[in-house]
């Protein structure tokens, strides 16, 4: 009992610098979860499709960038080419998967995205090989090294890369918010998210909107892939980690962008704290399931999430 309820807090209090370090690391991985969840939310809002392939899109985007670089394309150009690949992907997904399945049940669309996941896994491995690749960081202008902060005798290390990741994520979210609020396509997107039929009836082309929204999710995926790849490396294992965006969504609500961000931070910080202070009691490695179990418990009390729309059902 002491080990579970008192000891962890004593540790947090007695080593505050370590505690801050843990919080910071949790925060950084939370930012990445938020970014993946953001990709999910974008597509879910605009088309009602629960895009299971978002995780593999992260890997695929990062891989194509690194792969292009290895072929001799300069760093900045490979980013642009990778964006082009994500656009091609968005276009073909809309053309060959979404359009023929219009009006099908949600669960059918969901399974189609699992099919897409397998295509991307197989295709990615066939083209780029299955082994992990190192992300190119300095070539595309990401900083390395760290800042050291010493509050009252302790020591807390902030990786410059992590700070950059946070800033870029913030900029990306701000950019998306601007895009959604102030541009013509952004407004059309919100209209589609609100009501498909009404949007079509005022002359908004659904097909075009879907390409845009899948492309936006692709951009988010590329940014996430770069950040995540820089922290570890680019491998297909990321795809499993990316599934943690699902509990993030459950926590934040499937339709809410602020929810995705807050949910990501809660999950990121929560799982780090749990792993460091409680994980040792039950054998460690708890990060693989902590987020899902939290989401499971949360679902029982508030199925619509923190910020989601209330689920109303009609017969």
């Amino acid at each position, binding site marked *: 009992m002491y080990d579970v309820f008192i000891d962890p807090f004593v540790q947090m209090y007695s080593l505050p610098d370590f505690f801050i370090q843990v919080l910071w690391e949790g925060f950084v991985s939370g930012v990445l979860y938020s970014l993946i969840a953001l990709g999910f939310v974008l597509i879910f809002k605009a088309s009602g499709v629960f895009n299971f392939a978002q995780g593999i899109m992260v890997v695929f985007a990062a891989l194509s960038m690194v792969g292009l670089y290895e072929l001799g394309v300069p760093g900045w150009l490979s980013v642009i080419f990778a964006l082009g690949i994500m656009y091609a992907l968005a276009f073909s997904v809309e053309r060959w998967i979404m359009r023929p399945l219009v009006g099908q049940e949600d669960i059918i669309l969901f399974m189609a995205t699992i099919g897409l996941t*397998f*295509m991307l896994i197989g*295709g990615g491995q066939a083209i780029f090989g299955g082994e992990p690749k190192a992300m190119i960081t300095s070539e595309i202008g990401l900083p390395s090294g760290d800042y050291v902060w010493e509050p009252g005798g302790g020591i807390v290390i902030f990786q410059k890369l992590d700070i950059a990741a946070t800033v870029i994520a913030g900029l990306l979210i701000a950019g998306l918010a601007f895009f959604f609020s102030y541009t013509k396509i952004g407004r059309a997107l919100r209209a589609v998210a609100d009501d498909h039929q009404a949007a079509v009836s005022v002359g908004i082309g659904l097909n075009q909107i879907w390409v845009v929204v899948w492309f936006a999710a692709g951009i988010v995926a590329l940014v996430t892939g770069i950040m995540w790849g820089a922290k570890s490396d680019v491998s297909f294992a990321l795809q499993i980690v990316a599934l943690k965006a699902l509990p993030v969504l459950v926590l934040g609500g499937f339709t809410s962008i602020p929810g995705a961000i807050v949910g990501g931070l809660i999950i990121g910080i929560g799982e780090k704290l749990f792993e460091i202070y409680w994980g040792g009691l039950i054998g460690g490695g708890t990060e693989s399931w902590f987020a899902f179990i939290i989401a499971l418990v949360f679902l029982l009390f508030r199925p619509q999430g923190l910020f989601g729309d209330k689920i109303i059902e009609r017969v």
Partner: protein
Amino acid sequence: MFYREAGQFKTSYAKDLQAFPILQDKIGIIIWAVIAVLVIPLIGIPGLGYDFAMKAIILPTLIFTITALGLNILVGFAGQISLGTGAFMGVGAYACLKLTTYFPDVSILIHFVLSGFIAAAVGMFFGLPSLRIKGFYLVVATLGAQFFLEWAFGRVAWLYNFADSGAIEVPTRTLFGVPITGASADVVAQYFVVLAFLVIMTWVASNIIRGHIGRSWMMIRDMDIAAELIGVRPMWTKLSAFAVSSFYCGVSGALMVFIWLGAAEVESFDINHSFLYLFMVIIGGLGSIIGSYMGAAFIWIFPIILKEIGKGLGYNATLMENISLVAIGVMIVIILIKEPHGLARLWQISKQKLRLWPFPH
């Protein structure tokens, strides 16, 4: 021309309710039975090496058919989508290992069944969230089961008998003096054990589905609120679907490890396998027993065929594996677009066509 029921009259209720009302179907089933009981144990699959055919194709296909049946009950009949199948199979496998360690004298067949019940209990526990949530939310909940159980399989040393390898090491167990598990097992005996499980479990499943439990599953699937309004109890219905489905998965997991693999690590129960089982159900046909057979056979055998073709053409094995991943993904999408009811529906259509053949109408 040959496949038609003209002149075959049903003169009693019992005849009306039989599983195979048409004479041609009965003949077909008898042919399959002869193949299953005589041809396969004696010569395997014609044109393939006997051991390869048994070990790499027939045993896994039969075992995965049980899995697909179980998952089809949950996804196809009760409409509760699950990505935790692999983990539930793991529960069956580890339960069987513990049971046979503590009670080595009890027949392994009884342990297979008991481990199914243990998996059913675990499945019901993780099915509890389905009472409040559905659809994607349930996917997240079942993923929670998948990852949590996977973690437990790897970390709790008691589960794998404190083996140094961290893997299940299957002891030798006999049935009527013939070893059916472990390294010295007799492959024909293994085949008949698996076949018996499959036949009995198919028979049970088809009868559950015809009965009131199966009907209430389908009512919940088609519209849960309406079903509740006309008196179907959602809690009992959903949990029973989870229980039956997990029972099937548990038994097939135990069979998979004890009879087919012989040793298994956590990777045998990981999420990629859960996807594979879901694909079997989708490709075979949601809500169809025969579809579970077709889906399992297709998903298991198709990559093997591709690999062999690749070997013949001189491509390396990993490339062919990736190609088969892509092909399966493409096929999922095509099936969802063109024929959401899967191979089972194609089979029905071709039967319909056979009825009229050679005339167009």
